[in-house]
């Protein structure tokens, strides 16, 4: 028997058979682990739209809390062909190509400031992009000829970042948000754009954000030029920044 072909207008989760819709999930309920709790978890699965939800594990987490693993068939499907995700629309250049691009088209050194702003103390992301060593074999911006890279580190207030950008006449600002609580990264990212606009700087700089919970679409929505998610490297960011500088005639 030939394999059934995927209908891209009706895509749903795959467990071991096409269109079985199998999903796994886990969650905690603030009630003690007993038969009623287990039934509550099952009904919750149904209310989420799962067919045949099955509570495969229930564990007590002390009095008043229980943890569940639930499987079920997802009834919903998605028209994959109708999806258009805005992406950073620049071909990534290598480090050498970026350096040559700066030399040839910008004809001066550019300054890029990076910071992990607001409450976030996790510099993993900004370090991966900025620091000499980079990440996973991809050198960071500090090592690029023609780029003056300044990494301000973690928990930098937006005001301080803007002040630094003014002081150094930065061409671009990179903001990283890695771990955030209760979505505090959204108002925090918004605030930076507002500050830049208030200073009349927004149009004069390339402003980019990145982090595991950030994508290009969200970034654009918040008023950034681009957003980079997990798996982006220094050359991706650098390519975008130098291209944008030239495109917007910020040379």
């Amino acid at each position: 028997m030939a394999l059934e072909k995927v209908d891209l207008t009706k895509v749903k989760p795959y467990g071991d058979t096409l269109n079985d819709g199998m999903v796994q999930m886990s969650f905690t309920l603030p009630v003690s682990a007993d038969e009623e709790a287990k039934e509550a978890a099952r009904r919750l699965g149904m209310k989420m739209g799962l067919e045949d939800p099955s509570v495969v594990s229930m564990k007590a987490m002390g009095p008043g809390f229980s943890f569940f693993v639930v499987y079920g068939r997802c009834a919903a499907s998605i028209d994959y062909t109708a999806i258009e995700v805005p992406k950073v629309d620049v071909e990534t250049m290598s480090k050498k190509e970026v350096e040559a691009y700066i030399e040839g088209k910008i004809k001066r050194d550019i300054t890029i400031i990076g910071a992990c702003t607001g409450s976030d103390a996790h510099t993993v992301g900004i370090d991966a992009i900025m620091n000499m060593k980079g990440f996973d074999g991809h050198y960071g911006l500090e090592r690029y000829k023609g780029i003056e890279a300044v990494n301000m580190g973690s928990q930098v207030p937006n005001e301080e970042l803007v002040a630094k950008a003014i002081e150094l006449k930065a061409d671009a600002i990179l903001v990283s948000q890695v771990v955030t609580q209760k979505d505090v990264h959204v108002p925090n990212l918004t605030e930076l754009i507002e500050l830049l606009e208030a200073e009349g700087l927004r149009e004069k700089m390339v402003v980019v954000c990145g982090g595991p919970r950030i994508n290009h679409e969200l970034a654009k929505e918040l008023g950034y030029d681009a957003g980079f998610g997990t798996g982006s490297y220094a050359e991706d960011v650098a390519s975008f920044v130098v291209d944008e500088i030239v495109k917007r005639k910020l040379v």
Partner: protein
Amino acid sequence: MESKLNLDEKMIQEARQAAKAIADDVQYFIDEHTTVTVERTVTRLLGIDGVDEMDTPLPNVVLDNIKQGGGLGKGAAFWIGNAMVELKKSPQEIAEAVSRGELDLTKTPINDEKDIQRTIDEVAAVTVGTIQQNRERRDHDMKNIGDGEKPYLYVIVATGNIYEDAMQAKSAARQGADIIAVIRSTAQSLLDYVPYGPTTEGFGGTYATQENFRIMREALDEVGAEVGKYIHLCNYCSGLCMPEIAAMGALERLDVMLNDALYGILFRDINMQRTLVDQYFSRIINGFAGIMINTGEDNYLTTADAVEEAHTVLASQFINEQFAKKAGLPEEQMGLGHAFEMRPDLKNGFLWELGQAQMAREIFPRAPLKYMPPTKFKTGDIFKGHIQDAMFNLISIWTNQGVQLLGMMTEAIHTPHIQDRALAIENAKYIFNNCRDLGSEITFKEDGIIQSRAKDVLSNAHDLLIEIQRNGIFKTIEEGKFGGVKRMRTGGKGLDGVTKKDSGYYNPFVDLMLQGGA
């Protein structure tokens, strides 16, 4: 302990000797200086607490008054003692008078130095007695209620609301946690005052206040009695209020404190002169209060490469050990930090991590080493994250670490949810129990991968320490030798709070605590 690694004893001794010389060099500087937070700590230990109508803590009000009068170099104890002799009032009454603008400490007529010291010593003895009692209570509870088996399971709570934290902490204790750390609200380390009262809002954590300490202590005592073991409470004695937090912790019976000047210098850009002076007094307090300190070397590997820079962790542990010794901290209270941070796809990376963990164990045999989980290469793939944490747990039980900061599979996603913590505890308990005596069963191949790794790291740390001894710690930090982060001697936050001690400087607590009590 029988060595599994055949480490070169002579090299360890030389490294330790170099670290001692490095600490000696800094101690000259420390002994000549005091800071605003050291003196605010003295006021707290003299019983001054509360805030004025602007919510400024009274210790700050008092110190501002002394600093404005140019009296910082004599120390807060001198001025408060002087006012006590002159006015026959308690330190708290004096602080309140200062806050009402009725009293200017440095303008008060100067009394006889002996009278001042005698008056202050009486108050100091009472506080020191209270802290001594807290220490005895802890020892008593650990013996009578029970205590977790090492490695202690260490988890964090960080809701921002101390009451919510207390609830989550109890839940974690019931699941098996031994140490509960309350992550501080973002950027509290950069505040030059300690907030006051119970707090219910914070970002990425909960404010460290004395009242919050008390609330959490009470919750943990309660759940400890329920689960039949003493639950240790941890907070962050770092940043610009390092010794003040130590004093608050000593008074409210905290058990573990992050306490590392180098961490603050490198990762919070706190001025190095300021924080090294602050650290000394905070470690004296922690030492006397029986609080285990945790040092922050593990953080170097979040910015620098865990393979190439492993020796900087060891070098820093040697230095931290010497700084701690100078402050009277016994080895049993030195939770020196290190971490499991190598890239997971590294061939034989586990063997290297194992070699390093065993090395730390053998070089600091009595220290309850604080072992930090993988964070840098956590990607959001929680399933892989859970395995990374399991590998880390295996090394910990194998090499007998002291404090196991549990890895969360949701690292790099959010501050832990209740089930993240529960699953992390379950992971560790399973492995610790299943492999409890692995370490005493297995020896390592002579000159194999594990032994060679440990030898290399020791040898590099040894050379680095000799170099630091030659250049001094300040210059070493300026050159970015730790964590790849460069900090200047006069840069960073808090330098304006440092001053040279004048003749007649007085702080009764240093001697009292170093001598082990009244």
